[in-house]
């Protein structure tokens, strides 16, 4: 029986010729990830289990990005604990705040060339599924799984079935990967892909930028998926070759078999996708722009592992150029990494944001999960390019988060209500 792309990666990492849906396998891992929230409990587990050394100091990535730069004393203690563990174990890929290759974990792992086509990666963060954009099997786990895998370099999986998402056409004006994934989540619901892979395919893939693919895979978890994955093409290989000197090329087996079996098939015509907004309090509560009455807002956030890449920051700058953030609105821009930050600086984008009256922050997950750098008060409404709009996600339980793509978020900051770049006066 044919295998999906995900199944092929799992089979290869379990040392098996074939796996099928439902099989329990033990797989070798190419990379493991932890952050300042999930690593401290993993370190406790690691010590309690009397593990002594990590299996490979070069295959563990530790990133203080959630509540760092430290938001309070307790967060500082957590970051310190992770930093000391990294030092003790000689972890190669520990990323300190402010360093050139530092940033939000799911922005920097692809950016630093650590996630490569055909890899099998786990991370103690639910958005670890982001790297599927590069033809990687990657999925989120908890701290205990991370602890055990840090010691052994292996973890167990139940082999998932898959939903095949066939993409056709090309995205139109002001529409991005964010609208594609939000529309898909709206269609199948927040548990529509529970325990399964989302395998993207079709002629529409070629025209999607890597930034769009990363955004799409990033939110696979929001419909319950184990992972999202794209086939590899010239664009993928270009992306990797720019980051990995002398990259030898993707494994020859890295494609879904023609006779692979899928649980479900969905076709999305990209030319028909419209700018959408996910209303509180579920990412599946999706409505098309223009189909709802004016919603005035208090805050806009552009950034995060979902939309913090240079392409996103450029799009935001195009909207803000020559315009001002509306009276009564705070706009917060978070470049996803130090590299994105520097590039935005060199391209003059930061000046555009400052002229428009935006806050520009260091890379951090902060506001996305109501940590800091933009927490909402009772009754406040925020348009955010992040990934979750659950009750209390960005602050008070009576605040509201509206998820959108970068252009809608930036345009809303200028308009003062949720709207489209098309509604902005020409400057």
């Amino acid at each position, binding site marked *: 029986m044919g295998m999906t792309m995900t199944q092929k990666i799992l089979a290869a990492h379990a040392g098996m010729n074939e796996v099928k849906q439902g099989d329990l396998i033990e797989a070798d891992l190419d990379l493991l990830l932890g952050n300042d*929230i*999930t690593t*401290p*409990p993993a370190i*406790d*587990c690691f010590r*309690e*289990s*009397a593990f002594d050394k990590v299996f490979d100091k070069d295959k563990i990535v530790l990133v203080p990005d*959630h*509540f760092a730069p430290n*938001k*309070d004393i*307790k*967060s500082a203690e*957590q970051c310190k604990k992770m930093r000391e563990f990294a030092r003790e174990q000689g972890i190669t890929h520990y990323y300190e705040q402010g360093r050139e290759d530092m940033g939000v974990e799911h922005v920097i792992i692809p950016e630093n060339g650590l996630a490569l086509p055909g890899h099998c990666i786990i*991370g*103690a*963060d*639910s958005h*670890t599924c982001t790297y599927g954009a590069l033809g990687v099997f990657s999925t*989120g*786990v*908890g*701290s*205990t*799984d991370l*602890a*055990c895998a840090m010691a052994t370099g292996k973890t167990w999986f139940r082999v998932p079935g898959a939903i095949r998402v066939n993409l056709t056409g090309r995205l139109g004006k002001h529409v991005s990967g964010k609208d594609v994934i939000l529309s898909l989540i709206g269609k199948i619901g*927040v*548990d529509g892909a*529970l*325990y399964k892979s989302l395998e993207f395919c079709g002629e529409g893939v070629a025209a999607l930028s890597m930034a769009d693919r990363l955004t799409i895979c990033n939110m696979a*978890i929001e419909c*319950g998926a*184990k992972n999202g994955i794209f086939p590899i093409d010239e664009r993928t290989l270009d992306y990797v070759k720019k980051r990995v000197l002398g990259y030898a090329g993707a494994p020859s087996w890295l494609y879904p078999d023609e006779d692979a079996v899928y649980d479900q098939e969905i076709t999305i015509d990209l030319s028909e996708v419209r700018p959408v907004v996910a209303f509180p309090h*579920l990412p599946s509560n999706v409505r098309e722009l223009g189909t709802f009455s004016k919603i005035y807002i208090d805050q806009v956030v552009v950034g995060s592992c979902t939309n913090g890449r240079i392409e996103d920051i450029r799009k935001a700058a195009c909207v803000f150029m020559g315009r001002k953030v509306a009276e009564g609105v705070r706009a917060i821009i978070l470049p996803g990494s130090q590299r994105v930050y520097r590039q935005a600086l060199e391209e003059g984008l930061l000046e555009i944001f400052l002229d428009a009256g935006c806050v520009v922050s260091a890379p951090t997950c902060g506001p996305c*999960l*109501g*940590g800091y750098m933009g*927490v909402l008060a009772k009754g406040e409404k925020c348009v955010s390019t992040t990934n*979750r709009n*659950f*009750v*209390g*996600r960005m602050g008070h*339980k009576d605040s509201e988060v509206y998820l959108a793509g970068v252009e809608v978020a930036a345009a809303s900051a200028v308009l003062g209500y949720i709207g489209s770049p098309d509604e902005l006066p020409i400057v």
Partner: protein
Amino acid sequence: MMKGMINMQITGRTIKYGANVDTDVIIPARYLNTSAKEELAKHCMEDLDPEFINRVKPGDIIIAGPNFGCGSSREHAPIAIKASGIACVIAPSFARIFYRNSINTGLAILECKEAYEGIDDGDEISVDFDTGVIMDLTSNQVFRANAFPAFISEIIKSDGLVGYTKNKLSK
């Protein structure tokens, strides 16, 4: 047969919630600057049901709708639930990371759609993990979930994967 070796049966009062109870309401991220379980338990379910902490008693059982535990990978979520005194969560389905984290941290969870539909808030129920039989003692109904395989029962009995691994190594 391994069956019968582990005798795990509990009786408790239910606290019932709807679908898609996410990890942000189970334990809001603003409290994730610590992983101390007593601290986390104080804020369990805070944004969904501020009364939860006052009404939960050791041994209570959560009955909830589909996709329980969706959202983040924070293991703090099952840890907070367990430390609040909850003995078991029963739902038609669980988000996959939460499912894994629950077993790893020793929180008993069972998938059963009929139990969610048939059991009311405040009912007295008994759960037999060996057989998967759930009895509603208030309404006299019986439901059946898939029983734990023996090794999963062992993990939960050992208070999670760490305890299980230690027990195995010391044998």
